[in-house]
């Protein structure tokens, strides 16, 4: 049977309950206001007239600002929220990876919780039993199988949730952001598992702010803004549209409310001349602004770039659908006493951000760089 998602003119209006706006002049009025004001019922439109189709082989990125309706749309596709009007048709088995570390009984054992979550996913006991050990093994919790779940750490619970949710192959995968934190060992395993599941599934819908990830995984994209579908198309055009949208809001001084935007980029080439270290690469941010911070971190110490020259990188602009042609950079660092590149050691990272202070996102390192600084070279 072929998998298929069809969404036609879907709108979702929900009643929400808000407190009356009241200027609290002092603590007394604030407490009284909180206690006595009855909540008011307001109908809010979360999704408005959304229409799109997903066929087999589609990997669709859902782009949009916070609160644009990305998670809501995934919940509608999942059948949790029924649309107020319009038709949603989902054909094929569907697995949502929305909040994987929830839905456990804290006092029951790990093994019992696997059964609980498994039966909640409509699996029969017999087929589930064969999966218990692989799930425990994947989560690295074999020796914890008969411990109470509440004795696990948050990271272990997340691992268990991930292992359960991804242990079955489904036709359609709905995902809200990439897997959360975990140690690097588990993250590598989780990434491989996810890629395997995505490869095996017929349709993937992924909501994320991580442009690099979306570019890697998806071949199509839709952009939501205030519950409306404002763009649908291939991934590059969707990313481009999204960047332009973010830039529009930034000029309207709107983006500052959303905290630091995500930056991403890559360090391509490194060389040492006259005691100065020159690093070539590119750096862009998810909201379309031009990040200005590049910091070299050597064994925990931060060295901000003393100069940063912007250069055009048409190849990157094409690949990610960027708005800003000058996304490339040549950064110069002053590294006193550095005789050769191999003196840097192995604990070297290049961090990017809006400015030097905010630079905290590690950039991808091209193989050429790792090779240049590795002691064996």
């Amino acid at each position, binding site marked *: 049977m072929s998998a298929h998602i069809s969404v036609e003119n879907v709108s979702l209006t929900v009643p929400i309950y808000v407190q009356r706006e009241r200027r609290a002049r002092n603590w007394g009025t604030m407490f009284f206001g909180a206690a006595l004001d009855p909540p008011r019922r307001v109908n809010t439109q979360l999704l408005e007239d959304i229409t799109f189709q997903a066929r087999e082989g589609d990997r669709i990125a859902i782009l949009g600002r916070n609160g644009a309706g990305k998670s809501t749309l995934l919940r509608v596709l999942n059948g949790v*929220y029924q649309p107020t009007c319009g038709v949603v048709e989902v054909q094929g088995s569907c697995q949502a990876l929305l909040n994987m570390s929830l839905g456990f*009984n804290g006092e029951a054992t790990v093994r019992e919780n696997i059964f609980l979550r498994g039966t*909640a996913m409509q699996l029969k006991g017999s087929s589930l039993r064969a999966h218990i050990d692989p799930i425990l093994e994947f989560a690295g919790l074999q020796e914890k199988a008969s411990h109470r779940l509440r004795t696990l750490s948050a990271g272990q619970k997340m691992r268990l949730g991930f292992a359960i949710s991804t242990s079955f192959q489904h036709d359609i995968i709905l995902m809200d952001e990439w897997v959360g934190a975990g140690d690097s060992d588990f993250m590598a395993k989780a990434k491989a598992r996810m890629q395997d599941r995505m490869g095996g599934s017929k349709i993937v819908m992924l909501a994320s702010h991580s442009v690099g990830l979306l570019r890697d995984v998806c071949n199509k994209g839709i952009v939501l803004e205030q519950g409306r579908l404002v763009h649908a198309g291939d991934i590059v055009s969707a990313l481009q549209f999204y960047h332009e949208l973010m830039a529009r809001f930034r000029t309207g001084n709107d983006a500052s409310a959303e905290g630091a935007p995500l930056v991403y980029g890559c360090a391509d080439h490194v060389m040492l001349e006259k005691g100065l270290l020159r690093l070539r690469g590119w750096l862009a941010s998810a909201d379309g602004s031009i990040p200005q911070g590049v910091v070299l971190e050597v064994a925990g110490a931060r060295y901000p770039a003393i100069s940063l020259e912007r250069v055009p990188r048409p190849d990157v602009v094409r690949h990610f659908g960027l708005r800003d042609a000058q996304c490339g950079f040549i950064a110069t660092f002053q590294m006193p006493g550095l005789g050769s590149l191999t003196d840097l050691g192995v604990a070297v990272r290049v961090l990017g951000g809006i400015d030097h202070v905010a630079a905290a996102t590690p950039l991808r390192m091209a193989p050429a760089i790792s090779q240049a600084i590795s002691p064996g070279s």
Partner: protein
Amino acid sequence: MRSLLRDLKASFRNPEFWALASWLDIVVRYRQSRLGLLWLVAPAVIYIWGVGGFFASMQHRPISGFVGYVAVGYVIFRVTSSVIIESTSTFATAAAFILDGHVRLSDFVLRVTAKALFYFLFSLPVVGAAIAITPELQMSGLAVALVTFPLVMANVLWIGVVFALVGARFQDLSQFIGNIFMFAFLLTPIVWHSEIMPAGSIRGTIMRANPLFHMVEAVRAPILGQPISELTLYYLATMTLVGWTIAILAYRRFARFVPIWI
């Protein structure tokens, strides 16, 4: 549009999830203690023999005749009250499952109903001991009770559905209901005899308006060798029909809002 009857049918066909969930709810509560599942019996012993014995002597009745009366009343009341109290928070408790796509809401009502029935089964030995020493015990009445008890449970189920829906919308209901049931226990003839409230008096009318009285009486009267009054039969029949109609309509209208409310 979700249909209650269709969902219930599917729930009964696939009982794994709610049966396991309710069983875990029960066993984890007693895991920390040495006595384990024996604790399940403790409340029944305290209520039937302790409170029952105390009230028997207070009303100058022989304890042998009274504990059986208290026992049946107590277990029926307990099934009903625990389903109502717990169903008001059942959707909120299961929010993670519901928001993850498990939208067959009848499962969560059956989860609390099954839990209450487990407790009921565990208290049966205590009840059995109490009614065994009751002089008025009628064996044929036990057979009648086997028919009326499922009827009572049918009512408990629709009440659970309605309270679960209302409790999802008004989340403070669960605390309120807990308090109400303290009062309801005293208002329902469980530790006192219904004979002392004759029909016609104001208190007698209040007692007969109380649905809990009729649910208890439908099971208790035949066991203790008394006929089920016509009023009780009509009351229960009407309640079943009206109640299920309300539950079906409410579920069809409001089930889709539950994920938004919780």
